[in-house]
């Protein structure tokens, strides 16, 4: 078991991870009230998974959030954002904020802003994670006028 970094890094990232994820979620959910929003929150969540990737190696992280799952989640985020925009058609105009605005400075005070922040967070978090995992997985080799991709280092040759 010599994959990943040293025991200190592993233990610290294990302790830190849940707090980072909760912080990311709170940045997403309070995006319309405090600085932040879908994009920064998504980046924080994906940074947490990148931290696990660096500490433990990609096999362990892909057990938590597989490529298939994150692929589905980031497309769902895009479709959710589009449907938030499409819900406005119920009031007659694209992107119309038809939800109840609620009490000022409470969580439910922005109408559709909450849903759009959540969907952006989903999209940004998973697609940034996908990009970094793919960079860590791919070994690109230029061979006989052709470019090939390998997943393991042993296959190159």
């Amino acid at each position, binding site marked *: 078991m010599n994959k990943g970094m040293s025991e200190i890094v592993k233990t610290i990232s294990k302790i830190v991870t849940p707090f980072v994820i909760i912080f990311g979620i709170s940045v997403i959910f309070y995006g319309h009230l405090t600085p932040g929003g879908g994009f920064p929150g998504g980046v924080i969540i994906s940074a947490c998974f990148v931290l696990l990737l660096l500490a433990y190696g990609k096999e362990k992280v892909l057990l938590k959030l597989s490529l298939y799952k994150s692929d*589905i989640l980031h*497309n*769902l985020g*895009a*479709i959710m954002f*589009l449907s938030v*925009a*499409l819900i*406005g*058609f119920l009031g*007659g*105009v*694209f*992107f*119309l*904020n038809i939800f109840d605005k609620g009490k000022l400075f409470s969580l439910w005070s922005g109408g559709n802003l909450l849903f759009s922040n959540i969907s952006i967070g989903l999209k940004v978090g998973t697609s940034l994670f996908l990009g970094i995992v793919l960079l860590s997985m791919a070994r690109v080799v*230029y061979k006989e*006028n*052709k*470019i090939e991709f390998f997943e393991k280092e042993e296959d190159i040759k």
Partner: protein
Amino acid sequence: MNLIISPVILYLLSAFLIALLWKEYEKLSGIACLSFSILSLISVILLGKYVFLNERIVYYVGGWEIPIGITLMVDALSYIFLFVLNFILPLICWFSLSYMEKYTKAGYFYVLFSLISAGLNGILISMDFFNIYVFLEISSIASYILVAFGLRTEELEASLKYTILGFIGSTIILIAIGLIFGKTGTLNIADFTYIAKNINEIQLWFIIGFFISGFALKTALFPFHFWLPDAHSLAPSPVSAILSGLFIKVTGFYLLLRIITNIFTMFPESKIIILGLGLISMIFGSLMALDQTDIKRTYAYSSISQIGYCALALGIGGYYGYLGAILHFIFHSFSKSLLFLNSGAIEYRYKTTKIDELKGLQDKMPYTTMTASSGMLSISGVPPFGCFWSKIIIIISAIKAHYFGIAFICVVVSIITLGYFLKLQRNIFYSKDEFKTINEVNYNLLMPMIILSILISLSGLIFLPNLKIYIDKAVNVMENFKYAQIMEK
């Protein structure tokens, strides 16, 4: 007026639904993409009635008024671009159903195809500088990936070159948008033109300089053209058809046209710059096309030459100049898409597009030969076909503006165009070759080409007189419309 935004919604929905559900199933994703593109064509046709009755449609996204929210607008000019775009896209999608079989992961092709289409539609409907930039980047980034779709080394190299130059162009445009925001505090085009009346003109010179160089890079006018031949000739053929027939015209030419005629009306000098760039790229493109050994490379240089005609007509200005620019855009879009699809059909059977290795296509692929001939004759300006009418109007406009030399050069370049296409015709189509047995391509590849070639053959005689009132409205927009009128109401 929710129809105005429906093409963008439909194409975005198509992109993400295919990516979510059907990207493993290549046939199904192709059919889904085709049906979404046909739906968007129907919505654009339905939109036409309202545009021509009301002169223009202004749409406030989310119900927010002009300086605050995003505003969309379609008038007669952008409607013509929208119609041509949405008419050609389903045909290209139909063509790719069979053509993309040889590629693995064709599902991703339809995702990127939908994204590039959404971006191009979005550019045409938005009335906001930053919104235009966002849609420009959506379509540009999708096109960088599509150029490298085959993953061969040359394609990756062409895509890298295209990506770097495309990002330089986008960055120049973004700097201009930033300067606009810093100077006026607004990004809405109508609001900007309303405020810009009070600003010292010298301060706007920098902005329009950045805009012209950025959009000239996207249009591939002469000094900025060198990424185009590689990118357009090495991409898969349907992608070349989008890029050459639609992409450079919408992201480059349409925005250049708006900038010069509707937004920065206070600089008539900028038209002279466009005229000069157009003239040089017209001559240069046709001379370079004479010497190519690959069909698609010839077509790519021909695109540079023909977009030069459009820019030249825009630079000459006046009623005939603008009419010629619009008509040449329409007919060249149809003809160049047809020619690139045609080269795709040849590549589908022969597996090559080198001129030396192709011979005697008239016996083996008679329909492909006929459609290729109609496209080539159209672009070189032979009478009954489409581009003849636009070219003769451009020449008339040059004579009316007393540019006799330019009118003469237009005729000469047209003859050179006929020259390099006749070379292709003689070597590839009307020659003898008994050795290879090759059949005509199938129905899916043939029908889009036949539809396009019928349109460009009959357009000048049958459709043009009936459509003249609509095109006149678009020319009227270019001559008289200023965005500030929307604010004054």
